[in-house]
């Protein structure tokens, strides 16, 4: 880990590794909070409130900023522009890149890694898979659309994926790129006692057995992507998907109203 292969002398290089301070009065992880399987501020099927605004990055063709609780993601879309590679393609290409800010997670990340972390890449793949069925790529031959996401704060890796998907879809809409529908996404966790909690935070994920992220286009009633990790029974998975899908229609209204607000402000 201490091996610095890509040392950049032009910037202030922080330490490679860092650890969050542990205060003496803080509970040790594992025994944290008196009853870990009792949600503190919301009901199991509740998600954190969403703040979404489009068009904040003026240089980009489209952009969106999303905040759900402590998870904050900013997204910029550039394109459709001519694809960099010269080979001819009938369909447009959608590129998704995810970066974590060094201060986004509990543990500091080394900035400016030329190679992305595995975490960034898997998140990028997830978001790409979620939004690619919605974009009408057949209308953009030889073009590429580049989606850049930056996670500013990470509270629950699942919520970074869902917030990223929502932000990416909103930013694509803001860019005026033709889509079949808006994609929204919701995550749920199966807790160790078998309960399903939607939109889990980092703290809550410590007590979860499995997690599931569902992305869909509520306007068309289509699901674009489901990704699941951990151990679940089929019943639990179906329950979780149903709960997510139900919540997605609420999220869809949030995204639609954010786009409307931006549109009428012009």
């Amino acid at each position, binding site marked *: 880990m201490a091996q610095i292969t890509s040392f950049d002398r032009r910037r202030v290089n922080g330490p490679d590794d860092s650890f969050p301070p542990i205060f003496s009065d803080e509970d040790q992880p594992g025994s944290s909070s008196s009853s870990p399987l009792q949600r503190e501020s919301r009901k199991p099927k509740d998600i954190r409130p969403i703040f979404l605004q489009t068009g904040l990055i003026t240089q980009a063709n489209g952009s969106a900023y999303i905040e759900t609780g402590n998870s904050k993601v900013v997204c910029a879309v550039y394109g459709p522009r001519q694809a960099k590679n010269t080979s001819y393609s009938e369909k447009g290409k959608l590129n998704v890149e995810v970066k974590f800010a060094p201060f986004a997670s509990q543990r500091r990340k080394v900035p400016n890694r030329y190679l992305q972390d595995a975490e960034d890449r898997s998140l990028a793949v997830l978001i790409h898979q979620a939004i690619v069925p919605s974009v009408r790529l057949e209308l953009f031959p030889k073009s590429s659309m580049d989606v850049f996401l930056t996670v500013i704060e990470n509270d629950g890796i699942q919520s970074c994926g869902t917030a990223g998907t929502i932000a990416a879809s909103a930013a694509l809409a803001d860019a005026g790129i033709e889509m079949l529908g808006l994609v929204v996404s919701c995550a749920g966790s199966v807790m160790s006692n078998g309960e399903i909690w939607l939109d889990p935070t980092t703290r809550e994920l410590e007590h979860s057995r499995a997690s599931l992220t569902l992305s869909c286009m509520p306007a068309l009633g289509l699901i674009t992507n489901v990704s699941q990790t951990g151990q679940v029974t089929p019943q639990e998975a179906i329950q979780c998907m149903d709960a997510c899908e139900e919540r997605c229609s609420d999220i869809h209204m949030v995204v639609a109203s954010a786009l409307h607000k931006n549109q009428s402000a*012009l």
Partner: protein
Amino acid sequence: MHPQYIDDDAAMDLDEDEDSTSRITSPGESIISSQAFMRGHGTYLENDQVVSSVAGTIERVNRLVSVKAIRARKGIFRVTYIPEVGDLVVGRVTEVAARRWKVHVNARQDSVLMLGSVNLPGGIQRRKLESDELQMRTFFEEGDLLVAEIQQIMGDGGSSLHTRSLKYGKLRNGMLEIVPSALVRRLKSHFFSLPCGVDIILGLNGFIWIMKHVKDHEQLGEQGFDAEAVYSNQNDDIDQATRGSIARTANIIRVLSKAFVPLTDAILADAYEWVMEQEGSSDVKSILNDEMADQLVAAVTARA
């Protein structure tokens, strides 16, 4: 938990009787039945319904329903320019490649500017050497703005440019304003000066360069081609008054393009004159006030 959104669900489908002239929609919303209406831009068909594919305003002309995207209204995006041979364009270098530059001209594909189609230092008719290839960035770099002419259209819709005239080349001493390309018509000349000491280059692709006036005797003849000056990245000294004039011209263009007024040399000169007649014209920003902007548009369209 989300009571405020639940009721809106029912409103997602548009009633046919409703006035849809300024309704805002987002992708995936069905707009209207395709039985009675035709689908226009920004829509697609799904189960006998016209469904929106962009976020924007619904526009209806008789039986044609289309959705105009948000960004199209800003004139930055989706109003792409279709190049034609002989068009004068203003563009931005996006890439330096082998013996060519790629130039963004607001078209579907970036234009190509070949090393062989630019004037190089030391006489125009000299051969392009390998050493020129190696120092292409001393002529144009990524991000540089240039004015050029479309030389050729390729089979795939791409285009190539040339700057083989002393009028063409790198741009400096001014600012860029972007308008929908439809607003710039083909004119006798796309270079013109306003009496206030401002030169304007109206690119047919909707990119407009507004710069400090270049005096005729400063423009060197073919013989005295000065590479230092032509490919310089350094701005000249621009005094406060000229800066004001440039900014005022840019604001006028912004206001006119928002009202979708076609831009010609005569209209811009008229508009500038009108603005200078107004009270408080020393304040460059005042043009952008809604009231003043409306008056300006009214005055200009009345004269035209």
